[in-house]
């Protein structure tokens, strides 16, 4: 076993929960970020609108004295302009360079920036290093030889404070929401996976022998799995039952020759009796062994198929070597489309026995042909020897099952073949070949698809 196979794959719950959590976290973070950004932007825009309005108020209150000096005829409403270094300032710069400032600015100066008549805003720092948002524009008065630069600045600190409070609130709200959703996901996953846990418990009960198959009522998604599992269990039970029968039959079958042997051993052994009994035991073992090893292929193994031609050719190569003295020639009529739907070992067993039998009896030629009729595969092995009559062959194929009247080495192969074919749900037919000898045909119906 590889290390990979030993370590169980990541559990379904972990997959589902981890996946949902990552997604949830990501979505909450993006949503929260967008909200915070939008809020900050709104607040800042509103702040700059306020400054803008204040600037307009200030401009309305600005007048030119007859001597050309600029004055603010009435104070701006906000008392913070009177408080020194409050963070709220205004400033008017005459063309001559003289400055008129709010009391709050005291003797500090906010450096004006040349711009024009349009309103603009910018950020800067105040006399106490506080962050300021400045709204400013140039004003033209008749009679003055230059523009008056009007400027108003507000402390953005209070805006930041608001944003921070909002962020805090947002994070805690989203956190709470996330936790709630996480709990919901956990519950959902546990609930959703409950049928699988039930199936595991069901399987454990099967393993412990408390019940023969899965009995639970399963949702649509896992019901096919349970059905497949049950099929496998049924098949297993059937195989075990069959194997048990075989072992029983074999053991019982062996008892008779053993009894004869032990009786012989007590008197003076008669070699012919010993030999006959040994042969009987041998045939019995071959017969049951053949069936037992064929059992593996008896279940229609889906998706397994073997090219008939390839197997027939390799068997012919071997048999040509074994029967080299006989100078046999093999002819084939096997289309490429002839596939045996089952295990290679079983086809090898069927064809091997048929071809070997044909070789034993043939004068000079053994012919192997196959045909896919559309709803089944028919394989025929013929020889040109005197061999068995079809009736004898049919009898021989049954003989494996009967211990009496057994001739050694005769038809044992045929009996194995007919057993195997039967296990595949096919049939074996014996006839006269056009070549002159025996023709054995084995037919298999294609499993219906779906």
């Amino acid at each position, binding site marked *: 076993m590889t290390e990979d196979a030993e370590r169980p794959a990541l559990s379904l719950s972990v997959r589902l929960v981890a996946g949902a959590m990552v997604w949830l976290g990501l979505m909450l973070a993006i949503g929260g970020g967008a909200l915070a950004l939008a809020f900050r932007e709104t607040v800042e825009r509103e702040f700059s609108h306020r400054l803008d309005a204040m600037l307009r108020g200030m401009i309305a209150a600005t007048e030119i004295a007859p001597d050309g000096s600029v004055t603010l005829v009435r104070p701006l409403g906000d008392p913070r302009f009177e408080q020194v270094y409050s963070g709220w300032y205004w400033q008017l710069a005459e063309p001559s360079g003289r400055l008129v400032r709010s009391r709050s600015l005291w003797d500090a100066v906010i450096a004006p920036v040349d711009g024009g008549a349009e309103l603009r805003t910018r950020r800067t720092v105040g006399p106490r290093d506080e962050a300021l948002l400045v709204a400013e524009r140039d004003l033209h008065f008749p009679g003055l030889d230059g523009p008056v630069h009007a400027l108003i600045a507000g402390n953005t600190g209070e805006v930041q404070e608001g944003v921070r409070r909002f962020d805090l609130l947002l994070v805690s709200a989203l956190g709470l929401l996330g936790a709630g959703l996480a709990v919901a996901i956990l519950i959902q996953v546990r609930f959703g996976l409950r049928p699988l846990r039930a199936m595991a418990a069901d399987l454990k009960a099967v393993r412990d022998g408390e019940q023969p198959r899965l009995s639970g009522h399963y949702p649509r998604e896992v019901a096919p799995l349970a059905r497949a599992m049950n099929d496998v269990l049924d098949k297993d039970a059937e195989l075990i039952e069959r194997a048990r029968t075989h072992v029983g039959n074999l053991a019982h079958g062996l008892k008779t020759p053993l009894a004869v042997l032990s009786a012989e051993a007590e008197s003076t052994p008669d070699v012919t009796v010993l030999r006959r009994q*040994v042969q009987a035991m*041998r045939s019995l073992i*071959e017969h049951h*062994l*053949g069936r037992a*090893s064929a059992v593996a292929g008896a279940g229609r193994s889906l998706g397994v198929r073997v090219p008939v031609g390839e197997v027939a050719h*390799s*068997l012919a190569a*071997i048999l040509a*070597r*074994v029967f*080299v*003295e006989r100078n046999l020639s093999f002819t084939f009529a096997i289309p490429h489309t002839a596939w045996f739907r089952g295990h*290679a*070992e079983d086809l*090898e*067993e069927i*064809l*091997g*026995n048929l071809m070997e039998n044909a070789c034993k009896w043939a004068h000079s030629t053994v012919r192997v042909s196959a045909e896919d009729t559309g709803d089944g595969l028919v394989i025929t092995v013929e020889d040109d020897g005197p061999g068995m009559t079809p009736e004898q062959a049919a009898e021989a194929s049954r003989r494996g099952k009967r211990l009496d009247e057994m001739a050694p080495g005769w038809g044992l192969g045929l009996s194995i073949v007919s057993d195997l074919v039967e296990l595949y749900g096919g049939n074996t037919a014996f006839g006269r070949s056009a070549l002159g000898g025996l023709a054995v045909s084995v037919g298999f119906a294609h499993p219906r698809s779906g």
Partner: protein
Amino acid sequence: MRVLVVEDEPTLALRLQQMLETAGFAVDVAYDGEEGWHLGDTEPYDAVVLDLGLPRIDGVTILQRWREAGRTVPVLILTARSRWSEKIAGFNAGADDYVTKPFEMEEVIYRLRALIRRASGHSQPELACGPLRLDTNAGRVTLNGDPIQLTAHEFRILSYLIHHPGRIVSRTELMEHVYDRHFDSDSNTLEVLLGRIRRKVGAELIQTVRGQGYMLIKPEG
């Protein structure tokens, strides 16, 4: 004819050895895969009886190793597994024939003789050389149709020569194919045995080629 039996079941190995010796073979026995592989790799056997289920190295592997090393000795496989898929595996590894357990001793002997015959290029079970005839199936030699009585060693020598007629067989080659590895022999014994065979079949049939070995004369035509 000298054969190697590789079989781990002692009783079966002993019976095989006895039967094969009775049938006129010189027999070496190996009881496990490693010994069997080594013997087959180093000694010039005429055939090998190889069990497939062996301790240490299994039969199929041994066979593959021999074939990869270019050993062409005919191999008869003994196997308890009678499925064709297993026979195919054996043949693919380089076997020449198979016998399924349980088997009849006569079957093994018959197949071995056929393998040896085929390996030396004879297709008929009866080998003839002038007035001499060797019936490989029966293990019997006749001269002008009359059976001749031969001891086991005499039979092996004559049988080897009849398998390779008209060819000079060196003294060493003859000894290697006539005696098993535990037989303590010297060339004088071989000389004596050849002398006896000559007396039985006629001295002119077996020629001594000075310094090279012996040759069974092949009649003209």
